[in-house]
């Protein structure tokens, strides 16, 4: 096994980098696995990694129809935070945050997790009530957080327009110092490498066409390249395509897949050192280590698998960015793109058993998927390994949409009186 280090780089540079080993193999699948993970994105790869590492289950295949980490992992704005309101969600995302904090070392792969802090701005009295409520809940749940006033916000981000002239002046913010960003592709690659090292087969460019289900129990999957591959358990982690896969297994999910767009500016010299998010004005921005302003746009209202959304969504976002950061008016937008997010009615994920025995789904992350990657994989792996849902995953059953135990993370709607 090839360990990565600065010394290794030096050594390899002497041999013109000709002797680096493959990061992962390109195996032909076996006939049968203990566990098949459908979907080789961040969450699927993390699941495989933790199955191998923490549960010693290495007879595992990850089947990916495209390339590893090519879905939403490749398309998000890389924000990592855990300041969610409800106990259940806070626990899940904080579990992820703790894993993020040692992830580069654990994986021996630098995922460039940068804890530069995240501001969630408040522009109305109700925003501030919600912020206070969330931060209080976070602190009692052991999640770091502070409530800042406008002046404190401006000290952290001097380029933010915190004046009274703004249409919706900044009244304050919640501040999670441990939040930040990570190098999204590296997360997928790091988990993939870690899983592969431990014997997991990563099967790329192979589409799962259907599940093999006998007497209500899943026994394997049908693939386009390798035919039937059998498994004791199947975990489906396909984000935007979860609804499509569920239909193959014969059930519906409380999901809709929508386009979620993002954009980046041209690279500019470092000027924004933290993550700034505003739900009210609808702008989310951070600056990458390369210098791009990374900006998240809103979810389009319609169902869409096209990895592109409507232009007005981008316009509104850019208006918000110029409103928040008037100095960026002359900076230029380089590129925009879209992902497919599977959104749940309560803006929380589904990590769940399904009506089909031994078939598990991990989906519905909406806009919150990337930040949860290690935590999601970790609890999903534990659930698959034991056949019982991990206690952190338990509340996220799909059946909560029957009994009513929703975990509504939309937050309070705008004040109405």
């Amino acid at each position: 096994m090839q360990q990565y280090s600065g010394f290794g780089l030096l050594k390899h540079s002497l041999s013109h980098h000709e002797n680096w080993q493959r990061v992962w193999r390109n195996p032909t699948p076996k006939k049968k696995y203990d566990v098949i993970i459908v979907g080789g994105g961040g969450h699927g790869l993390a699941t495989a990694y933790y199955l191998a590492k923490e549960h010693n289950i290495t007879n595992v295949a990850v089947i990916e129809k495209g390339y590893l980490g090519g879905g939403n992992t490749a398309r998000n704005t890389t924000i990592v935070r855990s300041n969610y309101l409800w106990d259940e969600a806070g626990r899940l995302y904080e579990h992820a945050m703790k894993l993020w904090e040692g992830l580069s070392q654990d994986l021996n792969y630098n995922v460039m997790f940068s804890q530069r802090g995240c501001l969630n701005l408040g522009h109305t009295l109700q925003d501030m009530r919600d912020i206070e409520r969330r931060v209080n809940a976070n602190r009692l749940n052991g999640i770091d957080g502070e409530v800042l006033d406008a002046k404190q916000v401006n000290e952290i981000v001097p380029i933010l327009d915190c004046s009274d002239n703004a249409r919706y002046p900044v009244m304050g913010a919640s501040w999670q110092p441990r939040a930040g960003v990570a190098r999204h592709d590296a997360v997928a690659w790091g988990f993939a490498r870690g899983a592969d090292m431990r014997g997991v087969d990563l099967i790329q460019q192979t589409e799962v066409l259907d599940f093999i289900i006998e007497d209500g129990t899943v026994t394997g999957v049908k693939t386009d390249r390798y035919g039937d591959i059998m498994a004791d358990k199947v975990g489906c982690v396909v984000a935007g395509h979860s609804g499509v896969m569920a239909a193959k297994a014969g059930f519906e999910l409380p999901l809709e897949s929508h386009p979620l767009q993002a954009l980046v500016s041209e690279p500019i010299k470092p000027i924004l050192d933290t993550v700034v998010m505003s739900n009210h004005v609808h702008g989310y921005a951070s600056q990458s280590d390369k210098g791009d302003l990374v900006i998240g746009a809103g979810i389009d209202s319609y169902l869409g698998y096209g990895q592109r959304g409507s232009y007005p969504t981008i316009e509104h976002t850019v208006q918000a960015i110029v409103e928040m950061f008037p100095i960026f008016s002359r900076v230029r937008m380089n590129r925009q793109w879209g992902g497919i997010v599977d959104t749940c009615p309560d803006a929380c994920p589904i990590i769940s058993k399904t009506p089909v025995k031994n078939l598990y789904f991990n989906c519905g992350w909406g806009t919150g998927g990337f930040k949860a990657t290690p935590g999601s994989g970790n609890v999903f792996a534990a659930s698959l390994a034991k056949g019982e849902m991990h206690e952190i995953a338990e509340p996220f059953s799909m059946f909560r949409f029957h009994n009513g135990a929703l975990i509504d993370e939309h937050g309070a709607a705008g004040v109405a009186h």
Partner: protein
Amino acid sequence: MSQKNRLQSGGRIDRSKPLTFTYNGKQYEGFAGDTLASALLANGVDLIGRSFKYSRPRGIVAAGAEEPNAIMQLGATEATQVPNVRATQQELFSGLVSSATNGWPSVENDVMGLVGKIGGKMMPPGFYYKTFMYPQSMWETYETFIRKAAGLGRSPKEYDPDIYDKVNQHADVVVVGAGPAGLLAAQTAARGGARVIIADEQNEFGGSLLSSKESVDGKAAHAWVASVVKELEANENVIVLPRSTVNGYHDHNFLTIHERLTDHIADRAPNGQVRQRYHRVRAKWVVLATGAHERPLVYGNNDVPGCMVANAVSTYINRYGVVPGNELVLMTTNDNAYRTAIDWHDAGRKVQAIVDTRKNPTGALVEAARERGITVIAGSAVIDVQGSKRVTGVSVAPISEDGSKVTGSVKKLSADTVASSGGWSPVIHLSCHTGSKPVWNEEVLGFLPGKTVQKQLTAGAINGTFNTAGALEEGKKAGLEALEKLGLSAVEVAVPATTEQKESKPMALFHVPHTKPTSQAPKQFVDYQNDVTAAGIELACREGFESIEHVKRYTAMGFGTDQGKLGNINGMAVAAKVLNQSIPETGTTIFRPNYTPITFGAIAGRDCKDLFDPERYSAMHKWHLEHGAKFEDVGQWKRPWYFPKAGESMQQALDRECLATRESIGILDASTLGKIDIQGKDAREFLGRVYSNAWAKLPVGKCRYGLMLKEDGMVFDDGVTSCLAENHFLMTTTSGGAATVLNWLEFYHQTEWPELEVYFTSVTDHWATMTISGPNSRKLLEELTDADVSKDSFKFMDWKPMTVAGVPARVFRISFTGELSFEINVQANYGMHVWEKLFEHGEKYDLTPYGTETMHILRAEKGFIIAGQDTDGSVHPYDLGMGWAVSMNKPFSFIGKRGMQREDCVRAERKQMVGIKTIDPNIVLPEGAQGVFDPTAPIPMPMVGHISSSYWSACLGRSIALGFVKGGLDKMGEKVYYPLVDGRIVEAEICSPIFLDPKGERQNV
């Protein structure tokens, strides 16, 4: 300084208009018609930047949108700084101030360059991922250094003084690109009567013809262009947009065009003009005539200044009258690029040799070169170049016929310029934007637009038709096809004659072999801006990054501001070679908008600053302004928040407003409440279905409060609805919820219950609503009306039509404060009149205006909820202790009934709304504080519910709060604790949410 590379004549520059500009603090001169790049080259400036990762000296490579290196900082003042301007696309103007974006202390003497030289070896692709991990605590320090190297140009630090604009366009045909194909397409479509928009990113129309020596229609190419442009401009159905980049092609034939109106005049738009305009265009048909970009070849040290794309060299000579060097070596895989050597030679400078990678080049252009005495070295390639800040010589070696290896000895030639051509890549970016997958064409040696669902036509080089005659022909064809699809009749357009030589077959070569293996050869750059080399791509593939998307992401190829216009195909070719597969097997390149970067300001347009979002005003807004109101944003409304008097703090103002209302009389502008006029014989039935309570028996003249639920049983809005007549109701909603509620009613009516005879019309804006509240409110009203408003004839929850201050009004005796209250509604045009009359007469009662904050306090004292503040989409009426507002035995299963009976909604220990009294009456809990039963429990400490409303009650002389507590309704009198952010733990008692006048006697007087 003289323009040493400027020709005495020729080109499209105006030598009578010299312009001075500065680059890196030094003054230079150019001419009108120059780009910043051509002017720099004219002045012999070789070095225009340092590369991102290795800090290698870089020069200008191309002449258009594909330029990766010449990325400048522009701007004479702080506020007008523009980062990352592509010098090849920036027109020169007098006083232009530019500088290189990288290099410290200067681009000439860059310290990082040394680091790049030494450290470069240790920085293969992905090196970040392999290091800086240990110890964990050091990452932040490492990152600080990594971050220092980030970025190209810098953002201005002051606000933009310019304005931007947006315009919506509709066209029958949008033609993208005004080269030969585009011009003929536009001409044809326009003659056929179509509404046409033709846009081109350059300052002049003509595309390739602008630097062409061909004749078209028997005249100089540019003269033919001018005649077509004139015809188009004269046609009122045609919009001609130069300096306008079609940067995005979106669904259903929607395009965005970025027009630069003043960027070529000054760095600040003169006289308040619009700097840039954004066109949002809906096209019936789109003709993509976007041309092609020449591909440079990938060879050793191909980034040394002086290495250029062949066609760019010709463009500088023919269009700008600039020869960017003295001794040229041209390397080509095709005939086309021979023109560059010929142009160079004809400009009077020396062509050392044409190095043709093909064994036996033949053809008219080859002959033309040979006739000029230019040496053609066939079957060979430039495998690397010498020099650091400028090319000093090249190494030429014979290569195998398939281009895979060097087959003979290396010969050195002296040269200061290397032009290379590996063929042309069609500009298919826009076609890709809509999700269409490009298709590799072996003959074109490039990707062509793939299948599309858009109404899209293509013409010219985008189809791999690289000659002018072909482009013109296809342009006409596209124009005719568009006319046919539009149902317009065809027109006769003659395709002008051209003078062109036939070309022989090009060779498929992308990556030039070297005597050493790629990993050991001098760096062969594929993507200049991100320092991606052929060796880097090979390494990525070797490590298992085999998908082209992996290669791109691992090496950052194509992620620069040029988005891989020059490099992507070469990179794919390198990957394909390593992986031993074809280019199409390796993958396609998917381009996303924007084609070239767009100013944020232009995308925002006028929807910023004052116009970012509408401010909605009531009819009395001016009064509020004049009386010093502080405003609260409620949705888009500006509502008075409170009315401080001089020297008053907010709390003092609130105390005064509250006491005045409870003791005498206060007045609230309630106009923002949503109001819906509902008529129809089934109105009553409809109300019964959308509200949780009963409406069947509400008599005419009465009002009733209602809760509106979603199907899941959770409260989403509330308000009072009044029965105006048997089939006529007036519904009020929350201010923020008005639109949502109307939409909700229409949705259920139109999609579920169309059989119900009921109509809804919003009257929110029609009525001005003012609420007078307090013990003296009846007296005040009596002064202004003849109607009998006495206790017995105008009861609580009655409404009456009457005249108030001479204005016909509907007055509702409803109360949100718990006091005797009257809600006066008048046609909004009279709002100000009645408001002012009330103050005239109310002075003796000390009539006090109050805003939303006092309204909140007064209602909280009464335990009334605010939907959206005390509800969050997760509480049903029983959670709120408002079971009285639910009628479970209505015949129709109203919206929300089934939902609130689900398992989780009926369990014990749900969080329920109660009153909260702090033990210390002086402590006002923060709204959002979280309650716990055991404040000594370890973290995570179990929480039992939050405070949703909390105020200082001047009337009660203590703090009050509404909040949620698990099982709270059964825990009256029990303790709950609030550990606050500041470390305090506030002890409180659970109580009834009604703090004042529990029997409701004050409103019933």
